[in-house]
């Protein structure tokens, strides 16, 4: 049953998902072939920086849009399939609410992980442009020193962190929508508000944790300016651990909320 549910969840929106990620990759290929492979890193610094900033901003924007679109796709499937007219069919299938929820969690995670893989691989693809590699070799040592770790390790850490965060991202969407539907008059509006409240709670908690563990960059640096690189590295691993714990805790709470709503408070209008 779970398998079948996941299959149909993945089928939904597959086209949109493929199209937006194909566009992303096309942009990455163009970016590498027509920009990164040709750019002259020996050009005057001022000129180089402004062009690079423009290029990176465009890609950061593009990546954000693609991630947002993926999140919207996951949220839309959850909302439409469970809480609108389509829910009349979904909830009369011979599946339990727990199966329905897990199908949504797993399919959401699959979408999200695929999205991350495609984003990071596009980044990596642009990064390995020989032109960029040559330029980086000149500043690699400096860069490693300020990060406290090689860039490759940093990159892997980022990938790992975001993949671990996938479950809690998906659950945050689902919990917000489930809470929103408890207020039939403004379901979508409340879902959005709840999402931001969750977001703020997580932000406040992680800031709190950083302060408690004295990991905030400002504090750490002023306390020990001598060993800048080491503190940067501690900061990164610290943040990593805190995020891990926080998102695990939040994911459990959000799972419990969603589970309770779907099993006890389901009321289709």
């Amino acid at each position, binding site marked *: 049953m779970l398998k*079948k549910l996941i299959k*149909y969840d993945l089928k*939904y929106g597959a086209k949109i998902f493929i199209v937006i990620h194909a566009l992303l990759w096309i942009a990455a290929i163009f970016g590498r072939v027509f920009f990164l492979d040709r750019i002259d890193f020996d050009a005057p610094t001022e000129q180089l920086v402004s062009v690079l900033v423009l290029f990176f901003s465009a890609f950061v924007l593009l990546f954000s849009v693609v991630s947002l679109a993926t999140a919207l796709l996951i949220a839309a499937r959850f909302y*439409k399939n469970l809480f609108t*007219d*389509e*829910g*009349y*069919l979904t*909830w*009369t*299938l*011979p*599946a*339990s609410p727990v*199966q329905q929820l897990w199908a949504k969690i797993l399919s959401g995670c699959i979408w999200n992980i695929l999205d991350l893989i495609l984003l990071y691989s596009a980044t990596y693809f642009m990064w390995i442009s020989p032109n960029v590699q040559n330029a980086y070799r000149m500043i690699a040592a400096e860069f490693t020193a300020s990060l406290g770790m090689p860039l490759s390790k940093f990159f892997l850490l980022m990938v790992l962190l975001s993949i671990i965060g996938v479950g809690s991202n998906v659950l945050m969407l689902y919990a917000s929508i489930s809470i929103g539907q408890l207020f039939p008059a403004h379901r979508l509006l409340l879902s959005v508000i709840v999402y931001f409240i969750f977001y703020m709670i997580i932000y406040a908690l992680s800031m709190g944790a950083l302060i408690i563990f004295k990991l905030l960059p400002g504090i750490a640096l002023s306390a020990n300016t001598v060993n800048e690189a080491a503190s940067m590295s501690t900061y990164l691993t610290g943040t990593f651990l805190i995020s891990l714990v926080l998102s695990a805790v939040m994911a459990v709470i959000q799972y419990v909320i969603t589970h309770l709503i779907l099993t*006890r*408070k*389901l*009321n*289709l209008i």
Partner: protein
Amino acid sequence: MNENVILECQSLTKKYGNFYALSNLDLTLEKGQIVGLLGPNGSGKTTLIKLINGLLTPTAGQVMIRQMAPSPATKKIVSYLPERSYINPHMKVQEMLTYFAAFYDDFSLETATGMLRDLEIDPSMRLRALSKGTKEKVQLILVMSRDAQLYILDEPIGGVDPAARDYILRMILKNYNEDATLLISTHLITDIENILDRVLFIQNGQLALNASVDEIRTDRGKSVDSLFREVFKC
């Protein structure tokens, strides 16, 4: 417990805010009947139906299908047609058939394909391209192609023309297995009166009448339709 009981509601109550959509409803239905669920708009028909299907949670009381509360086990034996379109409009008719076949063990692809052919509906069409009436027919075909124990049809003939209405009633009669129970909610009483065994009148969230059609005609010498008009006179 009686083996023949398919549906049982005990002091079933559903409250929305301060409004009682259903209050203390008791009802027992036996298998092998076609039952009309009649009542004016807002009387609680759809609320009752949604409670049976587990789309709403009761405020108090309980609803049991073959002595089981709404659950995956009851959903296996209940075939439900809601009063709205529940099909993802981007799907094709054929995909819907596959979907039903994947999830319901009692779904017959053959029956469904035959009915689509009879009604000249092209299975390769997307749902969104179909007219409202055709969409309703597709949903009814999906629901009636299951070999269920309890069929619940909420306003099955509301949006189609009289000719299609006749076909749909025939389709219901043809596909309904005699051990099954069919609960049909409608306001078009005259059209379905002849196929009913029993009628339930619902008024203000309570059962106002539960009688067989022949009882009504023999005892009161009038049709269900005229009795309905009398009971629910404005």
